[in-house]
């Protein structure tokens, strides 16, 4: 008699995520996987392969492109979709700005993060998506700690923390009314470290900007480093420097800080994280600091 498999915590997290992805496939007519090109959504793609191969994914990959992405990430995205043979839908914040006559965010470090919400909601409407799978994790931020795995949104994409459905056992309720849709977070229970460990275990390729490389950066007053890109308006007084850096998340180039590091392998990155005393969002995202309840406000407004 063969010995039975012994499951460790990563096997359990993986099994949970695969189960959730298959629930989406089983319960919805027109799901979509929101793909950012970041490590969390790349891990989701790997999990979708585990859930659905040798079949095709029962959903397209959807990228909401702010226009401020790192070119390395966009190239990676296109290559991955082609290798997978899966459909990739790209919708641009730029087009939303034009169509809706929205104002471009100004300032020195213009962030289009807030505008993504509009593009996302328009895209949901355009394709009639009834479920959008995202790579958000509960450990990212306090407001996310209370997010359900199946999170029902009204027709405006809004999230009402008081009206969330209780989520019992691992039974996921995707029953919705016309106009409503659901955000689904299969890796809710993963931490940043879990994602890295999984990527290492599964040997998953990532965009190059996750690994240490030399980059021209501007030093912010907070001491954080921001990549010099065409989207920034620099003054003569800005302090510029070239450093060995990597990125911990791959959001907008205008608001995702680089961290100094010479970690050029997954093992070195994991080591870095174990040492790191600054959490992911704090180290790298500038725009959550705007208000203490930044994430909560954006969630109510229909952001992921």
């Amino acid at each position: 008699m063969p010995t039975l498999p012994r499951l460790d915590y990563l096997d359990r997290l993986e099994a949970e995520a695969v189960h959730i992805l298959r629930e989406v496939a089983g319960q919805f007519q027109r799901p979509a996987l929101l793909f950012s090109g970041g490590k969390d959504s790349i891990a989701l793609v790997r999990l979708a392969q585990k859930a659905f191969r040798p079949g095709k994914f029962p959903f397209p990959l959807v990228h909401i492109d702010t226009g401020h992405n790192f070119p390395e990430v966009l190239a990676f995205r296109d290559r991955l979709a082609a290798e997978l043979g899966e459909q990739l839908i790209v919708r641009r914040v730029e087009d939303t700005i034009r169509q809706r006559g929205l104002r471009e965010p100004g300032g020195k470090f213009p962030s289009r993060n807030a505008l993504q919400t509009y593009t996302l909601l328009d895209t949901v409407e355009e394709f009639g998506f009834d479920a959008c799978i995202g790579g958000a994790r509960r450990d990212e931020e306090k407001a996310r700690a209370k997010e359900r795995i199946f999170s029902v949104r009204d027709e405006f994409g809004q999230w009402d923390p008081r009206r969330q459905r209780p989520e019992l056992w691992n039974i996921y309720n995707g029953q919705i009314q016309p106009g409503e849709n659901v955000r689904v977070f299969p890796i809710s229970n993963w931490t940043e470290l879990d994602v890295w460990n999984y990527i290492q275990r599964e040997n998953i390729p990532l965009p190059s900007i996750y690994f240490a490389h030399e980059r021209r950066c501007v030093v912010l007053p907070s001491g954080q480093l921001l990549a010099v890109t065409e989207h920034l308006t620099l003054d003569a007084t800005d302090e510029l420097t070239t450093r060995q850096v990597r990125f911990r998340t791959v959001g907008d180039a205008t608001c995702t800080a680089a961290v100094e590091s010479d970690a050029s392998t997954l093992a070195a990155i994991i080591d870095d994280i174990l040492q790191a005393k600054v959490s992911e969002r704090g180290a790298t995202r500038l725009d959550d600091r705007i208000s203490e309840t930044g994430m909560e406000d954006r969630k109510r407004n229909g952001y992921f």
Partner: protein
Amino acid sequence: MDLLRFITCGSVDDGKSTLIGRLLYDSDAVSLDVLAALEEQNRTSAAGTVDLALLTDGLRAEREQGITIDVAHKYFTTPRRKFIITDTPGHVQYTRNMVTGASNADLAIVLVDARQGVVEQTRRHTIVAALLGIRRFVLAVNKIDLVGYSEQVFRDIVADYAAVAAQLGLRQVVSIPLSALNGDNVVKPSANLPWYQGPNLLEHLETVTVATEATTDAARFQVQYVIRPQTAELPDYRGYAGRIQSGVYRPGDRVLVLPAGIETTLAAIEIDQQAVPAAVAPQGVVLRLADDVDVSRGDTIVPLAQAPVPTRELEATLCWMAEQPLRPGRKLLVQHHTAKTRAVVQAIVARTNIQTLEQQPAAEARLNDIVRVRLKTARPLAADTYQQNRTTGAFILLDEQTGATLAAGLIEQTAPAEPEVEL
């Protein structure tokens, strides 16, 4: 490294949030910028030291009202284990959140304030956690600093709680005196508690045996999704994707597809497109059948020898979670994992007084009530009792119109006996 999921429960102000904050803080799970934000927030609200509870009280409404109103999840890892904490609210009106949290936990930490001892809520929370199938409990006697670290106070509380545990048949209770605020006995032993010889809280959490799914349980699997590539290379491939809910599956097993009752053989079990010699709960797998039978989402595939009898009549315990009361005759949807069917509530048999565990007659179920009901479903379900199986013995009830989750259901009996007749 394995995984432990636990809930924390207690009355408001017993120190739950502080305790979780302390676990995160002392086990180094809190990063510097979160701490900095916390200190900033503390400076602007009340003067004083870091309020650890702010680490868990996430939503603005809670910050404003100063209470925990929903289920929050927190994560930390030690070299020995990964932990998922579900923090559930203390208020009576949030029993449904407590039920939600308990449904996914292997262990419950029941917090009491050493000055108050075992109170109504302690009993209530323990009953709810036990009802949901939790067997491992920690009685955390908090604020021991406020009773002069008294051994006698601790002993008295432990004795009171033993009576509750005995009534519920709970045999795995570990009692720990601690001060969440000062950190005594949370992740470090305390010099203030020389009379206490047992493990500190973290030590216990790291070493308590976790629920590894018993491989001796009856094997259960429900189809989530049918994989049919229909490509040139795989024109006829049909795989039934799902999660093993309990027990062990092996290729070659004679199996039954329920509720149809079709017999066939398990031709292969695939994980990540590789055939495997055996698979166990909670692995996600693809089952291949030897015969071309009609199988769809919601169907159960079980080894012949262990098959349950599909039933359309269930007796179940419900935790009613909706504002609108439940009355007999109500039609709703049953979601039994991947199987969904219409159902009618034929009778409310009794309401459980979750203070005394007494069964009382009831005409309706109100928000947060625990009631026993009889249900009749449109389609037969391949179900077990909750006693037998914490997965396939569970279901939820949905509103037919809105889709809202109305109740948690625990199956007590799958083929209820005929009602007794008066002679």
